[in-house]
């Protein structure tokens, strides 16, 4: 059933590489950068990697087979001006694009061909003789040494021409039985269109669009698996025993509830006094911050977790309550994303740099995340919280290998264990040392490590602008993907009111004010001279 | 009965605000409230007209009298001004050759924003 709709979406998907329409009129291939003169400055900053390519230059690249940056196009004409010249330029530009596409070399040499066979039951593909750079970041090896690609990986590599896609000729055949010596008689080559027809849901198509888009940009991507309790997965928040967790986190939240009750009650009494105008008869304020401090007690706000310890608490209580408050929102973390890198370790990856939620804006069953949905997503996050790095900048960036765990063991310990496999004795010692160190840093964490160089108000603005926990929302709209970074903010924990400096305070005294002004004017003219 | 009188009072308030803004802030001249009225959703709509100090668009051949329809921001948000309403405004309140009117949206923060509305399709202006 769903295949029909899937097919319909193919056209939008395949044209998705450069979804922007080429409806602008092209001018000549002058790649002078002066075009920002006329163009509005509004979007220049954002559009860098969306800029359309000048196809006439692409041809030259193809011929020379050089890895170069494709130059930007010139500015657009406002309207058809009826001249032949304009027509000619337009024609040339269009022709250049088609030439660029038709002249490109495709296919692989037999020697380098890698065959992958799609398995309908598993919805995965088996790679027959795995070789190539993709092995380092994609696929997984089973216990008996078979190399399998997830469906998205399969399609992505097939589209790129890295693998040659096949399926078994007959449904009655079984891949496992044929395995030891599979030969071409049993295999049926697949076209890209065939593979697209294997998508199971619209959601899977959406996810693939996002996957392939980021993949082409060089990111490393894996799917976020559902079972958060899987010990073999890397996490910043190691699992603790059930007893400890219940005591620790439930008590913690109970305590918070009680204190917040107390605080709000106290605030109400206080507010009743402050917002009664006659209280000014009895209470006098001698500084503006006193007034602010009273004003700000009126509106309560949600405080967000800011330290590693607080983050771990949130994650643990999320895992404990996960089954209880199973929200009906289908939006959840879809992808782990790492920035392009060469030392990625597929078996023990570090925490991802970003986590992505895929959302289709035209699906009636989905809605843009509400505040509650967002809270849920924030609590489920498991990545390198970049704001922790920033807060510790001068103390040296946080070493995530010490603060991310697999099976409760810090990643750094696993790495060093792998390195010094021979010296087995020192293992436990290392782990203990690291644990000890971890405890120390955790204790230190909550106190904001003040760096000497950046002024406090600049740091404050940075905190306000960047926020805390964050994820990327990838919005699908008929093949067009928009990425949005959604971060928690906490303006309620920052005060920005103006506190006059000592100098300004002196001017305050009314009897001196006139004189002071005169002096100031004088000193100013001095400066000018 | 009272509701009606307060309604027309509201109307005259934003008409006055638009008139004052044009005369004293934008330096328009000969700003006046037009006589013709149109009843729309229980409110009498009138246009304010005046002569701007410069051409409002490069496409204009010369400075001309412009017609402004005052509207409150809250109304604007509630989609008080519909296509039907604008058609009626062009038909009943304007001359036959009026190509555009200007929406004067009065906000509650002391600002008024002006937007041109053209009757029919109009070539976009060059940026």
């Amino acid at each position, binding site marked *: 059933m769903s295949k029909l709709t899937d097919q319909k979406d193919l056209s939008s998907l395949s044209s998705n590489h450069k979804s922007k329409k080429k409806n602008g009129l092209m001018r000549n291939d002058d790649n002078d950068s002066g075009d920002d003169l006329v163009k509005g400055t509004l979007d220049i900053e954002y559009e860098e990697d969306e800029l359309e390519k000048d196809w006439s230059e692409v041809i030259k690249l193809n011929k020379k087979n050089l890895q170069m940056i494709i130059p930007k196009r010139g500015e657009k004409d*406002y309207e058809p*001006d009826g001249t032949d010249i304009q027509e*000619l330029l337009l024609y040339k530009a269009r022709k250049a694009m088609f030439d660029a596409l038709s002249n490109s070399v495709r296919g692989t040499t037999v020697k380098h061909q890698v065959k992958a066979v799609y398995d309908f039951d598993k919805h995965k593909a088996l790679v027959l003789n795995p070789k190539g750079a993709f092995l380092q970041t994609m696929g997984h090896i089973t216990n008996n040494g078979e190399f399998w690609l997830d469906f998205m990986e399969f399609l992505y590599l097939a589209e790129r021409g890295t693998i040659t896609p096949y399926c078994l000729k007959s449904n009655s055949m079984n891949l496992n039985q044929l395995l030891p010596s599979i030969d071409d008689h049993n295999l049926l080559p697949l076209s890209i269109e065939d593979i697209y027809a294997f998508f199971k849901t619209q959601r899977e198509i959406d996810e693939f669009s996002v996957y392939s888009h980021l993949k082409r940009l060089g990111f490393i991507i894996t799917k976020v698996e559902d079972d958060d309790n899987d010990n073999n997965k890397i996490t910043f928040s190691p699992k603790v025993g059930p007893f400890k967790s219940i005591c620790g986190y439930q008590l913690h939240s109970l305590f918070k509830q009680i204190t917040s009750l107390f605080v*709000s009650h106290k605030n109400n009494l206080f507010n009743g006094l402050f917002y009664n105008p006659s209280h000014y008869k009895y209470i006098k304020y001698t500084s503006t911050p006193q007034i602010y401090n009273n004003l700000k007690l009126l509106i309560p706000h949600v405080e967000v977790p800011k330290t590693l310890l607080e983050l771990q608490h949130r994650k643990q209580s999320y895992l404990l309550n996960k089954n209880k408050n199973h929200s009906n929102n289908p939006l959840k973390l879809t992808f782990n994303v790492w920035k392009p890198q060469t030392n990625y370790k597929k078996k023990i990856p570090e925490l991802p740099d970003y986590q992505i939620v895929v959302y289709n804006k035209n699906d009636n069953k989905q809605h843009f995340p509400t505040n509650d949905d967002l*809270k849920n997503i924030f609590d489920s996050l498991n990545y390198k919280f970049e704001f922790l790095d920033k807060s510790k900048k001068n103390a040296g960036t946080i070493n995530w290998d010490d603060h991310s765990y697999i099976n409760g063991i810090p990643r750094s310990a696993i790495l060093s264990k792998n390195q010094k496999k021979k010296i087995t004795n020192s293992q436990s010692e290392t782990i203990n040392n690291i644990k000890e160190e971890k405890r120390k840093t955790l204790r230190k964490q909550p106190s904001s490590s003040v760096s000497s160089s950046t002024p406090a108000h600049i740091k404050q603005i940075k905190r306000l602008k960047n926020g805390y926990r964050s994820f*990327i929302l990838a919005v699908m709209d008929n093949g067009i993907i928009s990425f*949005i970074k959604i971060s928690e903010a906490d303006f309620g924990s920052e005060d920005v009111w103006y506190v006059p400096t000592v100098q300004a305070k002196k001017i305050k005294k009314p009897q001196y004010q006139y004189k002071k002004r005169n002096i100031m004017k004088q000193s100013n003219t001095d400066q000018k001279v | 009965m009272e509701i009606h009188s307060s309604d027309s009072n509201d109307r005259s308030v934003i008409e006055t605000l638009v008139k004052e803004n044009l005369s004293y802030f934008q330096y328009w001249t000969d700003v006046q409230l037009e006589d013709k009225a149109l009843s729309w959703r229980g409110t009498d709509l009138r246009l304010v007209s005046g002569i701007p100090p410069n051409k409002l668009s490069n496409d204009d051949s010369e400075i001309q009298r412009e017609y402004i329809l005052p509207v409150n921001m809250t109304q604007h948000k509630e989609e008080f001004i519909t296509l039907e309403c604008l058609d009626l405004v062009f038909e009943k309140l304007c001359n036959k050759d009026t190509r555009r009117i200007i929406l004067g949206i009065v906000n*509650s923060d002391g600002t008024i924003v002006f937007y041109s509305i053209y009757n029919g399709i109009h070539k976009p202006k060059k940026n």
Partner: protein
Amino acid sequence: MAKHNSRLNNVRYKYPLPIHPVETTLPLPELLPHNPFSWIYWFYKYYRLVYSNNEDNLLETKITIDVIGGDSFPHIMVRDKNDMLYLWENGFFGTGTLSRSEPTWYTRMNQIVNGDITLNTGDINELEQITRRRRLERLEFKKLREKLQMELLELKKQSALSGSDIDSNGGLDETESLKRINDLLLKQREQLRDFKALQESYNKQNIGIHDNVMDNLKFDYESLLDENGDLLSLESLELMPVEATFLSFALPVLNITPRELFRKILPNNDNSSYDTVHSFIIHYVAYHFYRSHGWCVRSGIKFGCDYLLYKRGPPFHHAEFCINVMDNDPLYYRSNKNMHDYTWYSRISRVIGGAKKTLILSYVTRQTTKKQIMEWWIKGQYHKVFNSYEISEIIYKRWVPGRNRD
């Protein structure tokens, strides 16, 4: 120049709120927490300084407002010239109805009427002058560009193509024409760039550009004068409903009680149902929240959001944050009408991103029943009402993968 301004501004805007601290003629002695004697001394001094005079924090005479436009579209006006100035200088409240923000119309006009300045030689630092200047610059630039484009079109029309068949490879004529057009294009770009640079340098040297429009302005100044020949004060300061509420409920400087104010500005407030006050409450809660943490909160209408946050105020910093108040009331957002779809978010974020500001979505959540809120509301216990809403915030920002790779 800038330094001079900032010093004057520090004097002019030394109070961020319209309620001032009590002036103490002598500084208070230092309070040493570990020394009990210093405490006693401090309290003695405090009493002497603060309570010996009758002065308190409130204004001597409160500010009168005029609500026009009925309860459906209220406009809250401050008419008195000194009051307008006071509210602007002590927290940047309100907007001059005939100015960009600070009510400067009277000063500007008075200078013109007295012949001190003309409209185009006026103090270039006035916001209104800067706007006018930029508009003129853009206009001049466009005129030049138009002229150059006509030249280019002429050349294009002249350039005969070798054959009528556009497909043919073309002869020397075609290559030559293309080359000439390309050369002209490059020259024109250079010209436009130079023109921009020239404008920029005039701008820096403060050289006025000639504004023909303003010279030819047939402005009837006579009509602005009273019988004594003095300029009429035609400008008012308009307060947003949330600002007026803050200045009545939180810091009582307006000559009106909150209850009276709400009766005037909220529709059908006599037979109050929660729906009539809900939207106002959540907007006030957000306004108060940011104000109380020290921000100067002004209308965000220019950027399609609810509020702009300034540090200290518009003369000191650009607004870096745009606040959009999000109705997080389960009764409202669950219904489809009130749930924004992605297009809404995209629209608002592109406008704000284009202005290089940060968009904050500020979710306001009711923590108690509607019935309870209305009970307090009717009793006039507004602090309990506002205290029952909680703020939680997110930052919404466009993310470009290509710019986040390393």
